[in-house]
Every structure is written in C-alpha cells, then in structure tokens.
C-alpha cells in the first residue's frame, strides 16, 4: 500500500510540476524518475530487479531491439529506448534538413505553385502541415510553416492567425495518422508492437477522412477574414524565390534523399523487419556522415532535453506499472463500461482527449498503455482497437487548447513573436469545435469498423 502511494504521489507531483511550467520538464521527469528508483524500488520494494527492468538497458543489446523477424513487440516495462533513439535520430535528420533550407523551400515552392493566392495557400498549407507531420515531428513542421505563413501574410496583407491555427490543428491531425507522427503513437507502436502499416490503415484512415472535413470546416470558419485580402493579391509584389531558401544545393539534395529514404524505411519496416530504433539510428548516422563538416552544429541543435524528458517519464510510469496501480485503473474502466467495447472505446477516446487538452499527452499516453493492455487481457477486447482509440484521443485532444500539444505552443509563440499574440479565446474558438468534430468522427469510425 505504501509502495503504491509513493508511486502515485511521485507521479502526481511530476504532473503538477509539468503543469506549473516552473521548471524545465526534463528536470521534472528526471527528478521524479530518480525518486521512483530510490523511494519506490529501493526503500519500499527493496527490488533490484524492478530497477533493472525499468531501466531496461539490457533490451538495447538484444537483436530484437534492432531487427524483428516476426511481429515481436518491444518490452512494455520501463524505459522505452526504441522511442527515444528514434526521436533523437529523426531530430538529427530534421536538423540537417532545416540547415539546408528544405522546409522554407517547400513552403515557398507551394506558395508559388498556387500563385500566392490566400485561399489556395490556406488550403495547401493545411494539407502540407498534415502530410509533413506524418513523418516529421510537428514542432519542426509548425516552426517553419508558421514563420513562412507570417512572412507571406505580411507580403499579401492578410491576417496570419487563422492560417497558423488551422496549420497547428492539421499538424496534430497528420501526426495521428502514422506511427512516427506523434510521440504518443511512437510509444504506442513500439510498446504494443504495431507497425507503420498498422497505423496508416487504421488511424491513418480516420485522419484522412477527418482532414477533408476539417479543411472544409476551417475554410467556412475563416473564409471571411481570408477573402478580404484575396482581391489585392494581383498587385505587383516582390515574391521571395523558393530557390533563395536553399542555403547549400548539395546539402539540400542530400537531406531530401535522406528524408525520402527515412519515409521508405518507415513505410516498409514491417516487411523489412527493421525496427524504428534501427531506422532512427541509421538515419542519424547517415545524416551526420553526409554532413560531417557540420556534424557538431547538427548535434548541438538536437533537443536532448526531450530525450531526457522521456527517460525520466518512462521510469516514473514504470514505477506505477511495477506497483500494479495501473491494473486497478484498468479494472475501474472495465467496471464502469461493463465490458462493453463500444463504451470502453468512448471512455478511452474522450477521457484521453480531455486530459490531453490540458496536460502533456506524452505522459498520459505512456501511462495509459499498460492500462489498455490490462483492459484487453481482462475483458478479451481487441487490444488494437483500444490502441487506436488511445492514439486518436491523445493526439487529437491536444489540439483543443493552446497548451494541449507542442505544435500549438510553438505555433502560437511564433505568431506572437511576429506581432500576432493569440490568447485562449481566439485559439479555442475554432479549434475546440474542430477537435470535437474529429473526436466524433474517430468514435463513430471505430464503433462502425471494429465494434
């Protein structure tokens, strides 16, 4: 009982400290992770095995960690090193791409393709945001997209706020479509052994349908504001050339090829047997080899704090898992749903969504994975159905508020720094209905297809 209480208290303190935003979140999770190791596993459980199992280092040195012949899954207990290695690897690749000017070039090329007309830019940028976020972390996607949007807004004299808000929403939506799009999906995929193809044929279909509806929704929400500037688009202006975004042609070509290789490897990883950990490491090494002159700069640009955040987080969640508290939560969901799969799906989607709208969806997803696993075992429900519900709930719920997902924070911040502050009211006005819309689509889709 004392062990459970200590694990829960550490977990709640971690969440509270993350919410207060007083300390950097990696320091919070690392501190709480250390507390879990010392207090929960050391003082309460006197279990060295629990420490070893949670740190999970031995797993890295197994063949299955890098190459899976069958459909073996990553160990769920403790630190999910596959997620961390993959995320860091992709960060290295993205740093290389950004340095070469890839993202700015892509945004400018698309703007040029649609002849710098506001509405077509609005629609194409939403789609581009979703597509890029399927493979690249949404923070990077929004960082570049929002900056170019504000730049174009200044040039074409339109208000960039609606466009940035729609792009943020679509980045989160795109992230939900694939295993590598959003951190909760990477954790779900690696923890439960689902492939890129599993995600794209399930959450990907939901995201695809939702994207079409959301583009129409945002068009009707913002058309008045955007159409006002549409008439003046024919004026003679100096448009920035896409080519000017490329800082180095060779680096640009190399980073584009590496990105395409990464996409192919991810799409085919179920067939090739290469795990996401292998793909992440491989892509990072290739990027660094081809840009060895700038390797130092690229490595410096990698956000190690996020990797450390994950390490601490997995230890704290590992503490909860070891004490069996998550099984209790699963039993509670089972009890209130009466074993009804439809009700379980609805509870997982909507509770995850509401929670993710206000708290970081990564720790929430990491905590919920053992819960849905236990739920599937005890009720006989299909684990994959619960996984898709968790994925859509956490990924989409985060779109509802400015603090729900990292892309929202970065998008609103980029806009504010350029002179367009976005408060909660402005943000939530269109994004809350859009979130509810997609959550409804997800719930109905999962009910119709799987229940």
């Amino acid at each position, binding site marked *: 009982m004392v062990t459970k209480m200590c694990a829960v208290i550490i977990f709640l303190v971690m969440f509270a400290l993350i*919410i*207060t*935003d007083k300390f950097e979140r990696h320091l919070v999770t690392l501190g709480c992770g250390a507390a879990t190791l010392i207090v929960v596993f050391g003082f309460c459980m006197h279990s060295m095995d629990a420490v070893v199992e949670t740190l999970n280092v031995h797993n890295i040195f197994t063949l299955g960690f890098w190459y899976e012949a069958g459909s073996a899954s990553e160990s769920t207990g403790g630190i999910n090193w596959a997620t961390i290695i993959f995320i860091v690897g992709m960060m290295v690749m993205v740093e290389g791409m950004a340095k070469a000017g890839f993202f700015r070039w892509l945004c400018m090329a698309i703007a040029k393709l649609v002849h710098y007309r506001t509405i077509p830019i609005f629609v194409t940028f939403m789609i581009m945001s979703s597509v890029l976020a399927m493979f690249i972390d949404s*923070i990077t996607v929004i960082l570049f997209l929002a900056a170019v949007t504000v730049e174009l807004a*200044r040039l074409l004299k339109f208000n960039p706020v609606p466009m940035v808000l729609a792009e943020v929403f679509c980045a989160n939506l795109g992230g939900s479509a694939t295993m590598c799009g959003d951190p909760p999906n990477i954790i779900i995929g690696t923890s439960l052994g689902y492939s890129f193809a599993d995600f794209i044929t399930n959450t990907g279909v939901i995201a695809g349908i939702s994207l079409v509806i959301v583009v129409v929704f945002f068009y009707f929400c913002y058309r008045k504001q955007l159409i006002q500037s549409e008439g003046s688009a024919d004026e003679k202006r100096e448009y920035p050339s896409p080519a000017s975004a490329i800082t180095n042609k060779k680096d640009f070509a190399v980073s584009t090829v590496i990105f395409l290789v990464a996409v192919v490897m991810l799409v085919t990883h179920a067939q090739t047997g290469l795990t996401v950990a292998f793909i992440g490491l491989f892509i990072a090494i290739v990027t660094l080899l081809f840009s060895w002159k700038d390797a130092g700069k690229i490595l410096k640009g990698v*956000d190690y*704090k*996020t990797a450390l955040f994950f390490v601490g987080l997995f230890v704290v969640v590992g503490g909860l898992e070891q004490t069996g508290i998550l099984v209790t939560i699963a039993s509670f969901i089972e009890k209130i749903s009466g074993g009804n799969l439809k009700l379980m799906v609805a509870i997982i989607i909507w509770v995850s969504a509401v929670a993710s709208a206000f708290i970081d969806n990564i720790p929430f997803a990491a905590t919920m994975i053992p819960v849905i696993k236990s739920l599937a075992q005890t009720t006989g429900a299909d684990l994959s159905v619960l996984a898709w519900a968790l994925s859509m709930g956490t990924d989409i719920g985060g779109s509802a508020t*400015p*603090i729900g997902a*990292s892309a*929202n*924070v*970065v998008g*609103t*911040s*980029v806009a*504010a*720094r*350029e*002179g*367009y*502050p*976005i*408060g*909660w009211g402005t943000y939530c006005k269109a994004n809350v209905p859009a979130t509810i819309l997609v959550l409804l689509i997800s719930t109905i889709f999962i009910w119709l297809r799987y229940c």
Partner: protein
Amino acid sequence: MSEKQVIISIGREYGSGGHAIAEQIAKNKNLPLYDYNMLQSIADEKEVNVSSFEKYDEIPKIPFVSRTVRGFSNSPEENLAQMQFEFLRKKAESGESFVVVGRCSEMVLKEFDCMIPIFVLGDMEAKIERIMRVREVSREKAMQLIKTHDRMRKSYHNYYCTGKWGDSRNYEMSINSSKIGLEETVKIIEAYIEKR
C-alpha cells in the same frame, strides 16, 4: 565627441509617482522615455496594430494556462515581455541614452555599466491620496488598484528576474517619494546621476 551614454531605469510602486518622476527626469535631461510607448515602436516594426499588444503589457504570465516548449511559450504576456526586453537591449546596444520605466529594465540591462537602477516607493497613505486624485476614484478603489497593480508588477518582475521586485539590493537607489515630494525626489535622483 558624443556625450557619455546613460540609461536610467526606474522601477516603481503603484501610486508612488515613479512614472511622473521618470517623465520629469527625461524632460530635464532631454532624453527619450520608454514606457508603454515601446508597444507602438514594436508594433510599427512588426507592421501590426498596437491594440493587439495593449492588454498584455507588463502583465505576468498566467500560470496553468501557459506552457513552454523548446524555449517557445504560448503566453502572449511572456512573448510581449521578451519583445520589450529585446527592444531595450537593442536601444542600449545602439549607444542611445534613455529613461525607462519598469519592464524589468534593471535586470535586462544589468550588463550595461551606464545603467542606473532606481526604485521609487511611497507611504501607503500618500499613494492612496495620489491615486484618488489622479484617477478620480474612491479611497476603497484606490486601495484596491494599488494592491492589484503592485501584485501584478511583483509577479511580472519576479518571473523574469533573479532579484526580487523592490529589493533595495537590486537598485543603486531606493527612494520614498512621499517623504519629500516628487519635485525634491527628482532633484535627488538627478544629483545622484550627476555624481555617478
């Protein structure tokens, strides 16, 4: 030869007359005064309407509804504060002399030796009287305004700065304007600036 650069940073309690003192010093020394007028300069530079900034000026970031990711914050208050700090740094780096009111300037410009940090405080009774007169409000309202504004300034300041708001160790001079009146306070501050 150009005159030596001087930056006068004036922190103040609400109702102490710190802003009026800053205005007078700027006028006497023929220096530009930076206060909320910074917003207009920032808005002009960004080609946006200043009205979108006004409600976030010198307001602390709201806890629990703000989040920071990789150095990016969703808080409009924090983003505006950072823009103002950047504005002040650029002005200081350009060699310009000026008077600045609040905005954590004593910390933001700490690296500039020519910056003279001053804090103006006042007796509660004198502050209430001043607010009642200047704002044309009741005594209760004046007390409420003082309480609210000082709480906001303290919270705003202490979030961005290591030193605490109003702590005499952060300033070269802390002066109670209620004891000798605004005019004499201006004279004493100016005398200190001359001597320094």
